[in-house]
């Protein structure tokens, strides 16, 4: 017979382990990690075929873009520039002018390391993008259907009246700014800012990506012209598709920072196996 010895003090509370995320949330989450990353990268390759954005129905070389990634050759050498509205930002090495897959300088909107494929190849990028778009839509539809039927959306995502009380909202904002993460019972569910952020992503940003993407299709425009009207024209839809993609990247950055702050290993494990060690109040 063996004796199990614990290095915990006899009166120390045992860490509580719960099942944090359901299996559907975990699977759809990781599919999204892969699919959205590759959608973004193939999307940047497609963008590079015409690295300019316009408002309205039409826009081409002779029209005024509100965003353009290009080069400026004034004064002899070339520098990469991003024109956004009236601003002109030097972005050599990143936007407009950067090194290609062969290491040589190349005039391209986004750099090769960020695009799929790395080389400039619109046909292949489109093939990737539309293949992944189907996976994205199927994955998203599964998440929504099962989330609605199984109660995940109502139980975990929809903010309650108490969540939205101004005092609670304010407390959550202050906690986030002080990088203070909930412990004990409160750590077992999402806080209100977390719920609102997730809700904005699953109900607004991700559906907006699908709808603006569909609007770019001349076939869909003929079948459902209301979409183009909704987004203010095809080039506006293309611009909103781009802006929304940027907002998703912004969300992912904040999300990853929060994961690290909340305890990366515990958080990541809870999204893979579901096992989550509830953080406890620090003593002493």
């Amino acid at each position, binding site marked *: 017979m063996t004796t199990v010895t614990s290095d915990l003090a006899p009166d120390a509370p045992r860490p509580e382990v719960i099942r944090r995320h359901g299996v559907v949330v975990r699977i759809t989450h990781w599919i999204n990690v*892969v699919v959205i990353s*590759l959608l973004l*990268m193939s999307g940047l390759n*497609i*963008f590079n*075929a*015409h690295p*300019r954005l316009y408002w309205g*129905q*039409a*826009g*081409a*070389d*002779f*029209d005024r873009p509100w965003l353009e990634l290009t080069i400026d050759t004034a004064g002899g050498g070339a520098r990469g520039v991003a024109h956004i509205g009236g601003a002109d930002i030097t972005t050599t090495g990143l936007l407009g002018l950067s090194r290609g897959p062969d290491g040589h300088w190349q005039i391209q909107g986004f750099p090769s390391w960020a695009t*799929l*494929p*790395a080389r400039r*190849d*619109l*046909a*292949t990028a*489109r*093939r*990737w993008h*539309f*293949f*992944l*778009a*189907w996976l994205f839509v199927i994955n998203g539809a599964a998440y929504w259907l099962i989330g609605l039927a199984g109660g995940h959306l109502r139980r975990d995502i929809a903010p309650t009246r108490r969540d939205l009380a101004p005092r609670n909202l304010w407390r959550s904002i202050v906690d986030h700014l002080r990088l203070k993460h909930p412990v004990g019972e409160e750590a077992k569910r999402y806080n209100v800012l977390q719920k609102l952020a997730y809700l904005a992503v699953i109900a607004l940003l991700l559906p907006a990506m699908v709808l603006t993407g569909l609007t*770019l*299709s*001349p*076939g*869909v*425009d*003929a*079948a*459902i*012209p209301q979409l*183009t009207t909704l987004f203010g024209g*095809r*080039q506006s839809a*293309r611009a909103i598709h781009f802006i929304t993609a940027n907002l998703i990247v912004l969300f992912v950055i904040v999300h990853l920072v929060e994961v690290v702050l909340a305890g*990366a*290993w515990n958080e990541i494990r809870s999204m893979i196996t579901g096992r989550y060690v509830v953080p406890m109040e620090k003593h002493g």
Partner: protein
Amino acid sequence: MTVASRRGLLGAGLGGLLLSGCDRLTNTPSFQSFIGHGQDLTFHAQRLLLSGQPLAREFKASDISRVFKANGSQSPTSDTYQALLADNFASWRLMVDGLVAAPMSFSLAELKAMPSRTQITRHDCVEGWSAIGGWTGVPLAEVLRRVGLAPDARYLVFHCADNLGGAGDAGLYYESIDLFDAFHPQTILAYAMNGAPLPVAHGAPLRLRVERQLGYKQAKYVMRIEATDRLDRTHGGRGGFWEDRGYEWYAGI
């Protein structure tokens, strides 16, 4: 090294592996054709969506782009084309043959004497830009009615005068559509743009307008229309100049 940073490195390493793996997969023909199935799904989904044959959006004259970007060939260099251009296409004839009851050829004047349609539509390039232009031409259905399609005809191939891919037969531009699009009311053979004769940069004397698809389907400098039951015997076998260079045959997306 702490456990956490080792895990971080592992994660970054896996991410890098995934991305370089994707590029390698991209170069594998079998994988290319696998992700191409997404395009088949898109084609069938759009055909279902378009089964009522809705019209592409049409615009007002005031919406017409100030400058309509001319893409691809701007002026075919072949002696044949230059000779036709020199006499203002008076001796140009559109040949319509292949799987038809009666092969026929039409002069520009004959096409202009047929019923016409004018439409102001948005031209969407695969690169991402759009321009709005007005097109006048004879509905393709009118021409097909005159020659009479054979029952086994499935596609129409548009043979063009421009050598976008370099000299010789292999560099000739061509495109193809199926009968679903061929008989759509907005599918026209345009001889005028914005109320004036079609400029050379935009495909004089005759170009295809197949609205609801991207710019590369809008073949310019059309010389001959061939009705056929298969595309794999023409040029690169994928149904069009850009299709032979990796782009999708169905360009509704």
